[in-house]
């Protein structure tokens, strides 16, 4: 069974004029099919306004489809009776680090989810400690979140989700508001988490460097999935990515330039090491 599966997913919302009258429908997501197997690391790419965040919100039943179906861990998100199970199965980390931390102390924030689930007190403490340890923030447990850096705040937010013991974590542009160091910090945390716990990760982003380790990449544009495949397959189509307002890592770009200039390099080079080896073989 797929961890996350959508079939012909459609999401429409009403477009209103200044008086609030409905003047039409906007289709933010238009017939999207995705499959995510348990334990996979899947990235969803797209420019701002491509529908990727709207799609992410469906995985946590914050939004429910207006057409088609979304299943999370086999549960139909449209079923009101499944709402809390869906939200517990697929935890969500948002973009703005400040606007998702509820507690005034780090550990209390991490405990917020388990409290809502009705987990017994002793168990909450255990989970809080485990989750903070998993993201490397245990020593900050009694700090105020206001004193943390952006990257640290996002790690706390991730811990808050892990403490609910979800099978799947959906990260909706977790690095968009961070500086390069914070970005690295968060990505490293996600990678370590995947090693330590058997958890499915769905990363929504527009930073290409963050997806080179993904098992699978979906590219979205105006509500559709326009490309999908392994990072190598995706990154070998530099021109197409540019068309969808995306970028490629500099190393991929350089390899592409060199290919255009006549060097016989393989397509879809993602890492510095690969390029250096390929070039050394040529010379």
């Amino acid at each position, binding site marked *: 069974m797929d961890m996350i599966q959508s079939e012909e997913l459609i999401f429409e919302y009403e477009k209103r004029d200044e008086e609030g009258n409905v003047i039409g429908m906007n289709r933010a997501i238009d017939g999207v099919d995705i499959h995510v197997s348990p334990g996979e690391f899947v990235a969803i790419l797209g*420019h*701002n*306004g491509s529908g990727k965040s709207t799609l992410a919100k469906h995985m946590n039943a914050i939004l429910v489809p207006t057409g088609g179906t979304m299943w999370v861990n086999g549960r139909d998100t449209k079923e009101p009776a499944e709402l809390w199970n869906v939200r517990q199965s697929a935890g969500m980390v948002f973009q703005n680090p400040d606007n998702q931390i509820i507690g005034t102390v780090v550990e209390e924030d991490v405990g917020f989810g388990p409290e809502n689930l009705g987990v017994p007190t002793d168990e909450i403490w255990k989970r809080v400690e485990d989750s903070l340890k998993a993201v490397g923030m245990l020593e900050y447990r009694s700090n105020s979140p206001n004193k943390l*850096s*952006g990257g640290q705040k996002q790690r706390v937010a991730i811990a808050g989700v892990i403490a609910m013991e979800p099978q799947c974590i959906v990260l909706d542009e977790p690095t*968009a*508001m961070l*500086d*390069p*160091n*914070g970005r690295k910090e968060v990505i490293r945390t996600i990678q370590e988490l995947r090693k330590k716990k058997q958890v499915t990760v769905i990363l929504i982003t*527009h930073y*290409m460097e963050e997806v080179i380790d993904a098992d699978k990449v979906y590219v979205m544009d105006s509500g559709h999935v326009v490309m999908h495949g392994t990072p190598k397959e995706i990154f070998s189509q530099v021109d197409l990515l540019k068309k969808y*307002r*995306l*970028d490629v*890592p*500099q*190393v991929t*770009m*350089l390899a592409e*330039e*060199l290919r255009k*200039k006549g*060097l016989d390099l393989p397509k879809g080079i993602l890492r*510095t*090491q690969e*390029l*250096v080896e390929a*070039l*050394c073989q*040529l*010379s």
Partner: protein
Amino acid sequence: MSIKLEHINYIYSPGTAYEKQALKDISLEIKQGEFVGIIGHTGSGKSTLIQHFNGLMKATSGALYYDGKNIYETGYNMKELRSQVGLVFQYPEHQLFEVDVISDVCFGPKNQGLSQEECEKRAKEALELVGFPEKYYKQSPFELSGGQKRRAAIAGVLAMRPKVLVLDEPTAGLDPRGRDEILDQIEYLHKNTNMTVILVSHSMEDIARYVDRIIVMNHGEKMFDDVPKAVFAHYRELEKVGLAAPQVTYIMHALKAHGMDVHTDATTVEEAAEEIMRSFHD
């Protein structure tokens, strides 16, 4: 119209437990028409530094000369300075407040005491400069897309016709294309107006393509101040302070280490490609 800093120090909350020296003995000069990048990680003092340029923050000690005049002298016209040195904050769209875009852009000129007509003239000119589509002039700024909002906000500062434009992280939160568009627009501005442009960023890749000079800030000190190639040559030191040179710099160094005959000072993809091709042809 140069900006000249002499031994600027800035201390936060002096005399309390939170005392922190945010700027340490900064001396530098930025001449009219330059395109300068200021790089540093969060907390390096780069934001504090730029707020000194237009007098929003006052140095604890040291002197700052704008156009040869010390701005800390009593009676100096700070309001005039602020319209000469336009400062665009991070996420500038958060400062939008008017009912439509054009009125918002007029806010700056209005504060300069100009007539309604002149305000609108300058607003339109500024909106044009940032490539803001005319059909949205009368739209509420809150209904625009992220990229358009940011253009409108930058126009709000440009409408004051500053001689110096300082932008703090103008690309934060934008997608790759949005980022390129804004940076290209800024480059266009610089080329066409002889304005001094100071670009604050923490991304070396972004800055390397555009600026003529890079100032690297670290722990409140000026670490490097040179042309991009010379700054990136210190890539090991940059790494130690949590910054990184553009990825191509690393590629060139790796190639050289593997015995290829390349110069390592390429800072953009284009330069790197040419350099590698040259080594193949030789």
